């Protein structure tokens, strides 16, 4: 990572509530281009909601998210009371097609494993033959090529996670959003995933935001670490600074494995 980097995504003042519950209180976050930003947080801290807002699957109640230099036509999404869900707004479709969110519990289409990967490519107008070729290569890299022609519902949890990674490898979106990517993976699968993540950053120039509660995963892959606690990013810093010199006492205790009450 170069010393001077531009921010691909900038989040300012994002708030989100579900009924009476305030999930995100006032989120500021910078995601620098070509980097891996890990958002750490405990269960229920709002990590998934934040990721879904970044992925334009969910609307925020307030705030602004700037996507800089991904597509020329749209860069700023400003949320207010009257803003519809960005997933419903055709204007954001080109932007949505430059990002991919991999869910914690990977959803699958009924159909073959291969067709689960080609779907996104064919939506982008890529021919069936090219889509299949790229998808097979992605499945090989993700280590489940031998399952390509089987029914996707026959995959185990870990294999479904690999399918999720294969979709990312096939689409190569400039912005990749991963929700607890190693939650259902064994140590070998986790290693493979993390290697692929570094490959996507280093060789494909992709930017990733990874949400996890695993401090060790953050240490292994993060360029930047942000700590999400009670709906706020209370600290964001380069990895080494984050772990060696946490500014906030709550960060220090979380990193040390103490309970936050």
């Amino acid at each position, binding site marked *: 990572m170069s010393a001077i980097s531009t921010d691909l995504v900038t989040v300012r003042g994002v708030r989100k509530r579900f009924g009476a519950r305030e999930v995100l209180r006032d989120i500021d976050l910078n995601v620098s281009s070509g980097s891996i930003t890990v958002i750490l947080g405990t269960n229920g801290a709002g990590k998934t909601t934040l990721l879904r807002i970044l992925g334009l699957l969910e609307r925020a109640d307030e705030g602004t998210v700037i996507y800089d230099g991904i597509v020329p036509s749209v860069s700023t999404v400003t949320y207010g009371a009257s803003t519809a869900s960005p997933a419903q707004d055709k204007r954001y479709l080109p932007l949505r097609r430059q990002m991919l969110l991999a*869910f914690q519990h990977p959803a699958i*289409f009924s159909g073959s494993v291969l067709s689960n990967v080609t*779907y996104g490519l064919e939506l982008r107008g890529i021919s069936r033959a090219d889509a299949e070729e790229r998808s097979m290569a992605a499945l090989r890299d993700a280590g489940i090529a031998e399952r390509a022609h*089987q029914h996707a519902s026959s995959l185990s949890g870990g294999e479904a996670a690999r399918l999720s990674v294969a979709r990312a490898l096939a689409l190569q979106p400039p912005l990749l959003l991963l929700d607890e990517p190693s939650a259902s993976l064994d140590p070998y699968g986790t290693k493979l995933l993390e290697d692929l993540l570094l490959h996507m950053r280093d060789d494909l120039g992709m930017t990733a935001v990874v949400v996890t509660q695993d401090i060790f995963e953050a240490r292994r892959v993060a360029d930047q670490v942000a700590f999400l606690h009670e709906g706020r990013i209370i600290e964001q810093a380069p990895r080494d600074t984050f772990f060696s010199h946490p500014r906030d006492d709550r960060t220090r205790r979380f990193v040390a494995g103490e309970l936050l009450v």
Partner: protein
Amino acid sequence: MGDIGRGFVQAVRLILSLDPGTYEALGTSLRVTMSALFWSALAGFPLGILLAFAHFRGKQGVMNVVYTLMGFPPVVAGLLVYLLLSRSGPLGPLGLLYTPTAMVIAQIALALPVIVGLSVLGLRGADKGVFDLALTLGATRAQASIALLREARLAILGAVITAFGNAISEVGAAMLVGGNIQGATRTLTTALVLETRQGSFDRAIALGIILLLVSFLVNALLSRLGEGTSEAGNVRHLD
């Protein structure tokens, strides 16, 4: 027993002799049922998606109405459409009473709640994650809805088959708003009632057999279409 046996033999003869009256009634039945089914599906599936996944006030109330209408007595639906279309009714000037269009309207009133109700149940059963998955993979909302419908295709197929079965075999509403006019609004079911009343059991039985046969063929065709959709999902080698 004698009547039934004789009727059966003559029924087969009637079917084979391509009796014009019988086949006219068959044509009317199919036309009315298929167009009612078409319009009900066109409106019903989007409504089903909306009711399955949108959140709004009074949704449970709407669903209760839909579920109630699924068991709507056909003859009552027929009566309502009759009152709407009769000469002194609000839509009287259109002159639709005793036309196939009137029958289609009555059948839509019966089929639409079935399609909406059963598709809501089927879609709720399908994996909701698939909708978000399609969106994040770059689908528009319409494309994501299609992906979701594909996941729920068996339930969707069940809705279509049920609605078809109801519509083709329905007699009360067809009689009331169609009037059983020969060559115009006489269907297999209304003709069957007429022939039975007149004591022409052979013709009545022939109509019954044709009705069953058509039901069987259409259901077989629909099931085949349902299987076909998974082929379209380019699954080639299933273990």
